[in-house]
């Protein structure tokens, strides 16, 4: 009982001193809570479906950010991991494995794909790396068509088992995995590994000079990113009940880049927020089907024109500012820093 009381007090303290002091953290808390509570108040299967797909793409977008945003390994073929996760899960499911096993196993296959891509790409940087990665899902697409007996060819593998027969349970499975995955990715970027990822992006030579094996860390970034993208792919395959060539299409790779750039790269929460804005927005644009893509493009271009760092960092910078002394973020209205009491003016 005392232990429970201790933990409750600790949670309350963290909430009061760390979360409720910053609008961005309040928004994240509200996001977590609302995602968990939505099915209790909304019963619309279409709305739930959109949220499920949005959550899947949120994992996918955040995984791109982990690799390309944080480590600077620009990947224009991220659909490879998604597709490998989807096909991996589908093939195993076809052979009788249940989805709770196929999704993590599919993600592990995507990790292997991360190694396959990562190793030859280690020597490449910038544009060369981006263009090389672009080729990998196209190569895999060729393999998919070359072995229709295994992959289903142009049809893909259909008739996969559902995540659950209940839409609400499916929602909770996907949303909980999304929240945990995104939290894990955010935690990774906030850890020592994340700092090294950051440093590799900024100045790889300096990191090497510090005695850090950058090759290992870049491979680690490819594998971690592949794992989370693979999880997204597996969830997608089981939710859609099909893993087809569309999971490997170039459009899928570019979509994730758009989400990340729109939301703000090297943040994790930026791409997640962007997906939760852009996917429902695209659905809303169904009201004007002829102009749907045009309106989507207009919104993206407008945001990038006026907020080149991404929409969400721009909003955050409007309501919060960094302390010039201790670099801790404070509400923009504060006169002194909440931690070091430095003058914020």
């Amino acid at each position, binding site marked *: 009982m005392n232990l429970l009381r201790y933990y409750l007090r600790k949670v309350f303290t963290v909430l009061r001193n760390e979360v409720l002091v910053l609008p961005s953290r309040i928004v994240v808390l509200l996001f977590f809570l609302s995602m968990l509570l939505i099915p209790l108040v909304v019963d619309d299967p*279409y709305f739930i*479906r959109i949220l499920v797909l949005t959550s899947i793409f949120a994992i996918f977008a955040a995984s791109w950010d982990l690799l390309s945003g944080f480590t600077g390994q620009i990947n224009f073929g991220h659909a490879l991991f998604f597709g490998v996760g989807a096909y991996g899960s589908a093939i195993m499911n076809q052979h009788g494995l249940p989805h709770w096993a196929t999704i993590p196993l599919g993600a592990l296959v995507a990790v292997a794909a991360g190694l396959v891509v990562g190793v030859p790409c280690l020597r490449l940087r910038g544009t060369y790396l981006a263009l090389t990665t672009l080729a990998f899902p196209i190569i895999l697409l060729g393999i998919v068509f070359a072995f229709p007996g295994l992959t289903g060819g*142009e*049809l893909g593998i259909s008739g996969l088992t559902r995540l659950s027969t209940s839409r609400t349970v499916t929602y909770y499975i996907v949303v909980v995995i999304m929240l945990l995955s995104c939290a894990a990715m955010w935690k990774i970027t906030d850890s020592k590994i994340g700092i090294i990822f950051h440093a590799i992006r900024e100045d790889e030579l300096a990191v090497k000079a510090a005695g850090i094996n950058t090759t290992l860390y870049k491979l680690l970034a490819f594998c971690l990113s592949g794992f989370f993208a693979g999880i997204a792919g597996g969830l997608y395959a089981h939710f*859609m009940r*099909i893993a087809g060539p569309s999971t490997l299409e170039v459009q899928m790779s570019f979509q994730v880049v758009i989400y990340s750039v729109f939301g703000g790269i090297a943040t994790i929460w930026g791409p997640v927020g962007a997906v939760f804005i852009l996917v429902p927005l695209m659905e809303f644009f169904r009201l004007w089907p002829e102009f749907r893509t045009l309106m989507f493009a207009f919104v993206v271009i407008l945001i990038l024109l006026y907020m080149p760092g991404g929409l969400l960092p721009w909003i955050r910078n409007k309501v919060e500012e960094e302390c010039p002394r201790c670099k801790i973020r404070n509400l923009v209205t504060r006169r002194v820093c909440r931690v070091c009491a430095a003058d914020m003016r």
Partner: protein
Amino acid sequence: MKTVRSLIIISLVCVLALAVGVPAWGKDTIKIGVIGPMQFVQGKGHWNGAVMAMEEINAAGGVNVGGKKMKIELVQADSNEFLNVTDATNAMELLMTRHRVDFVVGGFRTEAVLAMQDIAMEYEKIFFGAGAAHPELCLRVAQDYDTYKYFFRAAPFNSNFLVRTSFLHLQFVAGILKSQLDLPNIKVAIVAEKAMWADPMVTASEGVIPKFGMEVAGVWRPSPVATDVTAELSAIQRSGAHVIFTIFSSSVGIPFARQAGELKIPAVQVGINVEAQKDGFWEATQGQGNYIFTLNTYARGVEQTELTLPFVNKYVERFGETPTYTADTYSAIRYSLVPAIENAGTLDSDKLVEVIRDQVVKTPTGTIKYMKDEQGRYLHELTWGPGYLLGLGVQWQDGKMAGVWPNKWKAAPEAPEITYKGIVDYKIPPWVVEAYKK
């Protein structure tokens, strides 16, 4: 005062009850969802066909459902399936849950239709597929009837039959060349766009053509979006091919036809050229696409059944173009769904499935009868063959798309000849005649 207030409250409750209750007992329309890539010609065909069916049925007073006349209401859903399969499934879910449609017609890309099929089946709504030709869609019906029984193919007949029909066209043209130009040994150049879907067709062609007593002169695989194919055409000319068997679904069909016409390649073209199925082909090839032969569903002036011309003429008048096979949403609604509803006297999907699967109906493209597989299981697959659906062979003749096949075609040596009304003779291009006439 108290009485007045009570009266107001009672009235408000009554109004509210009416407002909520009317949709339940006052439903006087049958909602049909039309799903397809609406920004593309295929989706426009889906929509146009459905609109024509709705207009005709509603003008005639609506559908008689167990003694009650109900009008048809269409709901359009853009599946965007060429670009995004997820979008297609969202559109289907939207039809099912927001618009609460009673039936769905449409779909084009097989991968998307498979995913959409699952959603429609989950809601137990009858879905007429009018675009995807892959047999898998109907195999699912046979394999898991309880789940997939609500799916019916409306158009086209499945891809195995499409290939079979193309080979019949090849034999037909080769026969004419043999008899008119006295060519004993016909050489065939197989030209297929470099796309995955064409691979099995190329393999099949290489295997089957020698069995028809012809020789394969070679296989050429231009890019689906090639704009210059003169190298391939020169090589084909050098190979001595008399016939070019085309397998094109993309834009390469236009430069291939145009440049072959410009170079006066002494070989006739037959097979599948999707661009040549469109009314704009003549302009796109600047008239050089003359004599190109392709598989098609409709041609102006050709009568597969007595229903064809009224449909085609009205469609042309209404939309300014010849219908494509995705416009067979018209037949699905007008001739398959509505008669079934009137016979069953209900909108209940399970009861309607039992009627539709066994009904034989005449449509503008032929007679529709749903097949069973070898084990006697319901497939909900269109029957191909004489008396049912055959498709057409069309040839561009001086700016017009003319129907040229079936023309005195026999399914078997002892079978009766089949020639549709409006079919004209196939014409060998004059430069081919000049090249080979002895």
